[in-house]
């Protein structure tokens, strides 16, 4: 069973290493992210959180994106940079190693 793993760096901190399984999706509360090195992890996107309004339309707030989605695709090890804080003023970059197991 694949898992949706919710990571909130500003509230819970980041572990130096995150061990996940192939098929897991990792959702990081962050304004930006990138894969610095390694393999096994795919960056699905840096996304703006949106909601379905009461009129059925999708509404997106004004502000920087707030979610980074990663997917564990294959066994391996990757270093991922996670960027939080105001992207236009004082972004904070932290790194986490994600180890993907079978």
């Amino acid at each position, binding site marked *: 069973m694949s898992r949706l793993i919710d990571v909130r760096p500003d509230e819970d901190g980041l572990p130096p290493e995150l061990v996940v399984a192939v098929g897991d999706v990792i959702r990081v509360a962050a304004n930006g992210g990138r894969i610095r090195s390694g393999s096994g992890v795919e960056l699905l996107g840096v996304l703006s959180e949106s909601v379905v309004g009461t009129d059925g339309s999708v*509404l997106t707030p004004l502000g*920087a994106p707030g979610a980074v989605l990663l997917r564990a695709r294959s066994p391996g090890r990757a270093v991922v940079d996670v960027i939080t804080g105001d992207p236009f003023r004082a972004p904070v970059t932290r790194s986490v190693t994600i180890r993907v197991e079978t």
Partner: protein
Amino acid sequence: MDETGYMKALRDIARIAGEAVGDQASSDGGGAFDADAGCRVMALPDRLQTKAAEVAAKENPTNAPLQELALGDGVLDPLQLTIYTGRYWGPVPKTLTVSFMEATAADLRARIVEHLNAWAKYGGMSFTQTSGTGDVRISRGPGGYWSYLGTDIKLIPANRQTMNLQGFTMSTDEKEYRRVVRHEAGHTLGFPHEHMRQALVNRIDPEKAYEYFKRTQGWPKEMVDQQVLTPLDPTKIIGTEADQDSIMCYQLPGSITKDGKPIRGGLDINPLDASFTATIYPKILRDQGVAGTTTEAAEVPVPRTPTVVDWDPQEDVVLTS
């Protein structure tokens, strides 16, 4: 807001502006000279309205009629084309209620609402705390700083926040309250990002921006386009000249601009922000005790019309270009 709503809002603004300058024409019968009336709004006769609109648009393109307000084959009266924001709350003063998604200490709630109300010093919109579910629902959880735009907040499910102020506490610097809370409150009032104005976007070198945000944020080109490179459609907004010191303007580094100079970004509500707010959200009705809520419209006085003056058509001035 539908077309009828836009028209009503625009008429209300025109009427309030007329009242603000003391136009007594309609209340005294519309035609009699009143030496005590003071300054009046004077309107051209009907035959010159279209020509006047054409001249105004030629003089300043922002005066041009808004295409999305066209009514079939016709176009709205030029008097109704002086202001437009897509998520506008309307000219009648309103008080938006505010609640918090997480347990929040009273002093922190009061401090945040005080900064939301920094706009109320200049315009007719204000904010007040409620123990129930507010029109504005604030979370201090993860996700950064953001707000939905203007009347869109009425469409957000009640269990979701309409504004996010990640990590704000009583220890947060007062400068950040001014810069961030007031900025997000501006979005709630319907103000978009000032750095998306065409004149400021034109200063940005796209290739430098793509490289910069890729390197610092990991953003793909599409996100950079969305965040900093897509200008607001000038036919859908009306406002001051592009203002890099507006509270609604992000700070952008000189390394991504064509001239090497940064887009400074605003740190607080500045005089242009204040005067624009005073124009589109006039305080006059609030001062007169007329105010509304977002669910209960205020009683709007019967509209007045400007005094129309006329002369022999042979005396009309014909402009040639």
